[in-house]
C-alpha cells in the first residue's frame, strides 16, 4: 500500500498563486497573453538575456525600473534574499533614496555577496 496524504486546503486561483510568487499584475497579464497566444514580443532586443526583463531605451541605455516597483517584485527577479531585511511592499524609490544606490549597484552588491 503506497503512502498518501489527504489535501484539504482550498485550491488557490491563478491570481492568488501569482501574488504568492511575487508576480506583479502586469507580469501576470503578460503570462495570460502568452496563454491566449496574443502576446507579441517588443521590437528589437527588449527581452535580451542579461537585461533582467528590462529594455534598452532608444539611446542604448537600459531602462530604469519604476520607483514604485515593490521589493517583492524585485525578489522574484533577483532571488528571495535580495534586499534582505526590507519589507516586500517597500518601494524601490524609497530604497534608492535611503541607500543612495541605484538598482544596478544594489544588484551588483547582492551578487558579489553571494558569489
Amino acid at each position, binding site marked *: *500500500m*503506497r*503512502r*498518501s*496524504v*489527504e*489535501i*484539504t*486546503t*482550498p*485550491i*488557490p*486561483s*491563478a491570481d492568488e*498563486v*501569482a501574488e*504568492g*510568487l*511575487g*508576480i506583479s499584475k502586469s*507580469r*501576470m497579464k*503578460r*503570462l*495570460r497573453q*502568452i*496563454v491566449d497566444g496574443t*502576446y507579441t*514580443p517588443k521590437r528589437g532586443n527588449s*527581452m*535580451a*538575456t*542579461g*537585461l*533582467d*526583463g528590462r529594455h534598452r531605451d532608444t539611446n542604448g541605455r537600459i531602462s530604469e525600473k519604476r520607483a514604485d516597483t515593490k521589493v517583492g517584485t524585485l*525578489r*522574484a*527577479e533577483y*532571488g*528571495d*534574499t535580495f534586499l534582505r531585511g526590507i519589507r516586500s511592499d517597500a518601494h524601490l524609490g524609497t530604497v534608492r533614496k535611503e541607500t543612495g544606490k541605484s538598482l544596478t549597484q544594489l544588484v551588483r552588491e*547582492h*551578487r558579489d*555577496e*553571494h*558569489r
Partner: protein
Amino acid sequence: MPRVEPDSVFLNIPYDARFQPLYLAYIVGLTELGLKPKATLAIPGGARRLDRIFELLQGCRYSVHDLSRVELDKAPPPTPRFNMPLELGLAIAWAKLNPGRHTWFVCESIDRRAQKSVSDLNGSDFNIHNGTPEGVMRELNNAFVRPVYRPTVPKMMRSYEALKRLLPTLKSNSGSTSVFTARMFADLIATAAELRDRARSSQE
C-alpha cells in the same frame, strides 16, 4: 520555528537539461493538485546556502525528493550527485523531530534501485515514475489525494502539453535561456495555474 505553509511542497530535483520534461511535469502536477511547489533556485550559492535550503524545507508541509539521477555525472571527474540524498536526509531528520509537521516522498525512475542506492530506507515506500511526465503525474496523484477535486492523469497531461508548447515564448518573455531560474520557475507555476483554472472553468 518557521511557519509551515500547509500546501507547499519542497521540490528536491536535479537542475539539468535532461531533467526538463520531469521538472515541468512536477510543476504542472503539483499546481494541478492545488499545491505550491518550492525550489532552491532562488537561493544563491555561498556559505549559508545549506541554512537557507533547510529554512525553505522547514517552511514546507511536504517534500518530494527525486533520486532518479543517481548516475555518475559525465563531466570529469565522474561524480555522483549527492545533493538530492543530502536534502532527503535533512527532510527525514526534520520529519522525525517534528512529527505531523512534515511528510516526505521519494521518487525514482527505476523500481528497486532506491532500495539499493539508499538501502537504509528499505521498508519505505517509493514512488516510481518510470522517468516519464505521465509517471510523475500518476505518482503525484497517488501521493496527494484531494477528496473533493481530483484531476485525472490525462487532464494533467493536457496541461503539461499546453505548458510545453508555451515554453519558448515564456523563455523569451523572461529573457531566460534556461528553465532553471527563479523567474522561470515562478512564471511556469503561475502559467500552469492559469491553464488549470481555464480547464476547470470550461468543464463547469
